[in-house]
């Protein structure tokens, strides 16, 4: 069943086609990856899907609903969440509060109960704290439950973003380079975490540079180059595709599996 459907999508930045006439479908469940060389339009595509950019042309349907023009917070309410390539942490809050922001849509957000502390706000808040702490443990941040986000190392912050995105209990989770800047053992842990998330039934979409990671865990891969679709399919199919070899990976990189 198709969860996300992109049709003839284009985004032009002052004459540059960052994404050009792109069509693809992402089915519910499993792990999907979007790969391509630097500047291929991967992050632009993420920003288009999540409502941060408005497409120049084309249609994006989420669960058969046209979502072009909706703001990111409205998309979040429909069940879409994401992380960022360059971290977007709330450094003015504790780690736990960062994850609690992710719970926003599931909490009582009315002003007047909050103002006068009515409607069991206090109890709901401590419940939210528990839930956020559980999520932090799920992504392997148990030791940072009591930490300030500003005192956490880079690798932990990448997981914190994942925990925050998961807190929204979305149907689709878009991870923008979750392994960027991580060492091989940290990357292996992220690999494991992504599988674990996928097993909870969430559809995961990755943008990633690390070929090891992508080829290993993806059920479905979309290859972009200059904003266009170059190839699509399973890891095996993509690896064997001559266009991909020529345009992106180079003949040696695929077999050896070295990161680009």
């Amino acid at each position, binding site marked *: 069943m198709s969860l996300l459907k992109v049709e003839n999508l284009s985004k032009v930045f002052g004459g540059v086609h960052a994404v050009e006439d792109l069509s693809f479908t992402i089915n519910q469940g499993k792990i999907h990856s979007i790969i391509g060389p630097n500047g291929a339009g991967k992050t632009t595509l993420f920003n288009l899907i999540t409502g941060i950019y408005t497409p120049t042309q084309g249609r994006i349907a989420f669960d058969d609903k046209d979502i072009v023009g909706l703001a990111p917070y409205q*998309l979040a309410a429909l069940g879409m969440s994401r992380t960022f390539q360059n971290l977007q942490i709330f450094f003015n809050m504790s780690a736990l509060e960062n994850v609690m922001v992710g719970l926003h849509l599931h909490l009582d957000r009315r002003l007047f109960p909050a103002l006068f502390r009515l409607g069991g706000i206090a109890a709901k808040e401590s419940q939210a704290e528990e839930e956020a702490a559980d999520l932090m443990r799920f992504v392997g941040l148990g030791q940072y439950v009591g930490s300030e986000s500003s*005192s956490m190392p880079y690798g932990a912050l990448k997981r914190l973003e994942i925990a925050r995105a998961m807190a929204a209990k979305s149907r689709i989770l878009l991870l923008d380079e979750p392994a960027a800047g991580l060492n091989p053992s940290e990357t292996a842990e992220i690999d494991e975490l992504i599988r674990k998330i996928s097993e909870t039934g969430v559809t995961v979409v990755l943008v990633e540079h690390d070929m090891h990671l992508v080829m290993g865990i993806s059920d479905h891969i979309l290859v972009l180059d200059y904003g266009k679709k170059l190839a699509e399919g399973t890891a095996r199919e993509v690896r064997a595709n001559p266009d991909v070899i020529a345009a992106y990976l180079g003949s040696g990189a695929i077999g050896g599996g070295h990161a680009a």
Partner: protein
Amino acid sequence: MHRLNSPRTGGLMALVAVIAVLPLFFPNNFYFDVAILAGFNAIVCIGLNLLIGYAGQISLGHAGFLGLGAYSSAVLTTHLGWPPFLAMAVGAVATGLLAFLVARPILKLKGHYLAMATLGLGIIISIVMNQEEELTGGPDGMTVPPLTAFGYEIYGEQIWYWVVGVLLVFCVWLALNIIESPVGRSLKAVHGSEVAAEVSGVDTGHYKALVFVISAVFASLAGSLGAHYTGFVTPADVGFFKSIELVTMVVLGGMASTYGAVIGAAILTVLPQLLTQFEEYEHMIFGLILMLVMIFMPKGLVPSLIGKILNRPAAQQEDAAS
């Protein structure tokens, strides 16, 4: 889970104790007067701190909202003979409405541009107060009748002190309630990263407008009460320099700290009185104190001091690392 940086009961109790005990050390009504003015400033700063400290949005025009409250009370009671509390409520609603109407377009701006836009708003309000002489008395200002409630007149520094004291505690309580709720967390999220807040489902435009309106209403109410207390209001009391003073109070006390806003307001109200003995050096010393605090405690008084007391080992680690 226990959070030391939000000492809800402890902090409120301490505030109540300070307000209760302070009058014992007041030798005359002048001290009460300064304390009352500090209280009014503190109420405005609590609201302003929600906007600046928590949501990370600057306003250089908040004295305009203070002025709208003050002049609503003055004009409606004097010219139309309305009861003070009705005038105050109408002033607060009108101010909130104006804040709501300008919030969406203005708060799309960031940084210096937002500063300029709010500055302009404050100046426009100030110009209206100066120009509408028939209504407002122009630059000379106008008198405001005393506050009456249920036939009783609130009169004299000693009674006003307790009225303002109770209100201040109430406002601190309200602010703490907002902060420790999903609403307050959303404000902090807007400050931390707007794009991350949005994708987490936080309607950032809504929360920015909300906090702008809340802070404007706090200012309006403090303005109304202050006008009734002093019995007089001029455009200069609620002009550009007042806006700057309010922001300075928030920053000095410590951003994103409700008690910081109170302490910043108290210090900047009391300090000029203490420095009068230095006569012509008064302003120089005043400026010097502000500079030294901001150089050595850039986070403001309260967060810096709390950080020093609570996280001594952590702070030292950070120092060693940097």
